[in-house]
């Protein structure tokens, strides 16, 4: 998840864990609504007051970050809690509450600032609070607080040792070196709760009590820890925070001036508007300062004086996934990289980007966006564009490589060994018109090379249940089990319903910490639901990349990974998405880069 990410849990596709880079984005008090003819609905009367009203389609369910860490809740919490530190677009650490440093990438020292005060009489923020939270909540055996991703504080099944080394310092001692650790959404943007608050519920493991605690739900403990303070939360309607005069960053010297004078708005509001057209109308009328724009409406808004449209690159990739497990009707062929490469020649990625996504996407060829610093152009093989988009070539390659499979060309069509035309089942995620269109396009393209495709639209949850989950069907226990998405070897661990192609599940490509994609690319990967057996030894490549401190070595290893992936084509990498946001034209601050919201604190109104 990216900062300021509004798609949150609303779309059918987000699979990756949410990083909370967005929190800072949200915190970044960006320009206020009012100015230049737009009227603000927040704040009445004085035109000196500036208010930022952020329009979203879904509200948040809770403010208890120990039990829920999805984007909407994180967005709101970030207004009043800065989090440990931020990451700049250049992938530098920007300390907020704390600085994190390491010698060799194995032991990390976290040092908290002086002067961080909790609210509600919980005293100062100390290392004790952090260590308590990590060890008694995230690493608790029973996971009594129902933290959704306790695994992030574990390595090889064991909790990562975390120890207090001073009043305001603690150490995280990884078993293996991991130079990219600060960039992982573990400590990056991490929130904290006072020990005094948690320990009321810890001994009894009272998750309900914790969740229902008023201090938790009103963020009363936020003190001076964030640019705003909680004002009110009207469920399903608005979340309002007002300028925090005590904000700790004001007293700090090692941040640029613009951060010290933050925030530049008197209040920041999240406004829930479920109906898209209403939300967009509110942007036009000036009642909202910013909100997401669908690609189909960009043209309409670009012409307006009061609205500035900005397009931010994202790290989410849409792919066409092949079923290589034994319950497809083409799997024997799909298991061959050459066949997959052939199929990649058949689908026109440019058309998808230009026509279906109206240009608001970028073509993908491997499991990384091109803007990633680890992307290696030379290594990556491009298929499905220009010369490598060709139905004849696809046919040719297919013809050549269907040997050894039960399939062959009978005239124009691909048939199986019973001389029946092969029909592939393409399951796509309902709820998104572009996805449906892409599915239809794929069906057409495949038809042009002689393969029939049948389309079925399903709800996201159903796709997960019926096609992603797979389990061992053989006798006894599976030889190995990597979780519900990879219940064992691909010949016997299959999903409850057959499928051949899936479209609409998007993957996070982790441009900051690419080793996180390991689970997609190794045989026993936790997310390898499609039964892919790599020919390249990705496991050791990832090993190298994640453990070495030598940047050049890491780069080389990752380049090899992405190159190999583009050649092996575990699935057809189609395109990377973008986030399109419409802002009040008077807002200064957002830059059209990946990770743009990290400095949201410093956004302001023109002339402010």
């Amino acid at each position, binding site marked *: 998840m990216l900062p300021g990410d509004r798609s949150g849990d609303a779309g059918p596709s987000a699979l990756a*864990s949410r990083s909370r880079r967005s929190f800072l984005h949200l915190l970044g008090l960006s320009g206020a609504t009012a100015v230049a003819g737009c009227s603000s609905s927040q704040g009445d009367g004085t035109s000196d007051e500036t208010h930022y009203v952020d329009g979203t389609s879904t509200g948040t369910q809770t403010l208890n970050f120990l039990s829920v860490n999805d984007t909407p809740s994180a967005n709101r919490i970030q207004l009043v809690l800065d989090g440990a530190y931020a990451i700049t677009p250049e992938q530098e650490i920007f300390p907020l509450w704390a600085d994190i440093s390491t010698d060799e990438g194995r032991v990390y020292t976290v040092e908290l600032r002086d002067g961080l005060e909790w609210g509600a009489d919980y005293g100062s923020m100390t290392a004790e609070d952090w260590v308590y939270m990590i060890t008694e909540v995230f690493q608790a055996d029973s996971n009594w607080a129902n*933290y959704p991703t*306790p695994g992030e504080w574990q390595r090889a099944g064991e909790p990562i040792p975390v120890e207090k080394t001073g009043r305001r310092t603690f150490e995280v001692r990884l078993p293996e070196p991991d130079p990219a650790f600060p960039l992982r959404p573990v400590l990056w943007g991490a929130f904290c709760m006072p020990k005094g608050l948690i320990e009321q519920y810890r001994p009894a493991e009272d998750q309900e009590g914790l969740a229902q605690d008023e201090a938790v739900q009103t963020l009363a403990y936020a003190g001076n820890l964030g640019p705003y303070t909680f004002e009110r939360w*009207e469920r399903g309607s608005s979340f309002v925070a007002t300028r925090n005069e005590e904000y700790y960053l004001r007293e700090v010297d090692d941040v640029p001036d613009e951060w010290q004078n933050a925030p530049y708005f008197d209040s920041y509001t999240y406004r829930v508007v479920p109906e898209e*057209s209403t939300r967009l109308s509110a942007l036009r*009328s000036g009642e909202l300062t910013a909100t997401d724009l669908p690609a189909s409406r960009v043209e309409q808004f670009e012409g307006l004086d009061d609205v500035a449209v900005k397009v931010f690159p994202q790290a989410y990739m849409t792919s066409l996934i092949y079923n290589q497990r034994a319950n497809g009707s083409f799997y024997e062929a799909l298991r061959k990289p050459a066949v997959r490469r052939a199929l990649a020649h058949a689908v026109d990625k440019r058309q998808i980007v230009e026509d279906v996504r109206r240009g608001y996407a970028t073509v993908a060829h491997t499991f990384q966006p091109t803007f990633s610093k680890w992307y290696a152009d030379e290594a990556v093989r491009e298929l499905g564009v220009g010369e490598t988009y060709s139905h004849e070539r696809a046919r040719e390659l297919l013809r050549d490589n269907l040997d050894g499979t039960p399939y062959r060309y009978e005239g124009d069509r691909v048939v199986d060994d019973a001389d029946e035309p092969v029909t592939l089942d393409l399951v796509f995620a309902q709820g998104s018109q572009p996805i449906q269109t892409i599915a239809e396009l794929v069906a057409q393209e495949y038809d042009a090379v002689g393969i029939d495709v049948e389309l079925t639209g399903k709800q996201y949850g159903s796709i997960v249940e019926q096609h992603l989950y797979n389990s061992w069907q053989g006798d006894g226990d599976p030889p190995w089990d990597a*979780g519900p998405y990879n219940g064992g070897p691909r010949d016997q661990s299959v999903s409850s319903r057959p499928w051949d192609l899936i479209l609409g599940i998007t993957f996070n490509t982790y441009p900051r910490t690419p080793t996180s994609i390991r689970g997609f690319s190794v045989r026993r990967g936790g997310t390898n639901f499609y039964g892919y057996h790599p020919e390249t030894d990705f496991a050791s490549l990832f090993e190298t990349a994640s453990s070495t401190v030598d940047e050049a070595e890491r780069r080389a290893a990752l380049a090899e990974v992405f190159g190999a992936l583009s050649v092996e084509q575990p699935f057809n990498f189609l395109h990377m998405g973008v986030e399109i946001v419409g802002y009040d034209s008077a807002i200064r601050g957002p830059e059209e880069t990946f990770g743009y919201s990290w400095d949201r604190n410093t956004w302001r109104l023109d002339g402010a």
Partner: protein
Amino acid sequence: MGLKWYTARRVAWAGVAAFVILTVTFVLLDYAPDPELARIQFRAAATGADAETAAEAYAERRGLTGPLWERYLEYLGNLATGDWGWSDTRSQPVLTAILTALPYSLMYTVPAVALSTVLGIAIGLYSAFNQYTTTDYAATFVAFFGVSIPNFWFGIVLLLLFAVQLGWVPVLFDAELARTRPLSLANARQLVLPVFVLGTSAIASTMRYARAEALEYVRAAFVKAARAKGASEWRILTRHVLRPTLVPLSTILVGDLLGIILSASYLVEVVFGIPGLGRLSLEAIRRQDTALVLGTTLVPVLVAVLGNLLQDLAYALLDPRIDYGDR
């Protein structure tokens, strides 16, 4: 006395109906697949964590462990003591969530219902008296327009016209304003469109029913007799025709209006962004917030049951020919 016993019986029946509905809802909810669970599991798997643990943690947190009947009994017990549960998706007690959302819903449904009923009956009666005149056709046209046009589309279009183009009303519904100054002019401004949209869909059926019923009486002998007595047309309309028309009308009023409100209100609330009961229950269902779904199911059940009771009483009171003692 006949009326007391009658009322008591109706109330008891209401309790039975509510119980049945609650049980069915509870069981259905239990069997529905949960996409949130799927998401959590996948997320866990993607980060290399144990998806099973995450699933269990989720089940724990949402109180989904234990046999069905046990959980249901516990729920019923709490219900009786006023503890309607905690809504995970709202992070507040269910009762609070409902009571917070209720005023917003009332703010636009009550005026809409009142207006559409009064106007519907008035126009219906007028149409009956002036059948086949231009006004009658115009009224019928307006009524059918209102009921045929999709509410959400209508709302969006009106918003575009009156809020964006003309700026006469705000685009967004300000819940805080509605909560703190419900009777102010500003609140009225932001409620005009939702009331209008909901009202136009409700007015049609009331109008047509009223017209049909009144037509039966317009040519009735007793109307002629009243005219022969020297009663004015107005008196005939309001005293002689209205009252018997109301009798059958009241039987459909509650059911009809409830249907419109419960179904149309979702759309109206989504389009205008009003945090009312409609959205509350819809989102509760979507997010599988069991306690909240049950709570928000209970509310319309109670309203329906109460409404039917009132309707039966009204019917019995309005028409002296009904004898409720022996039923």
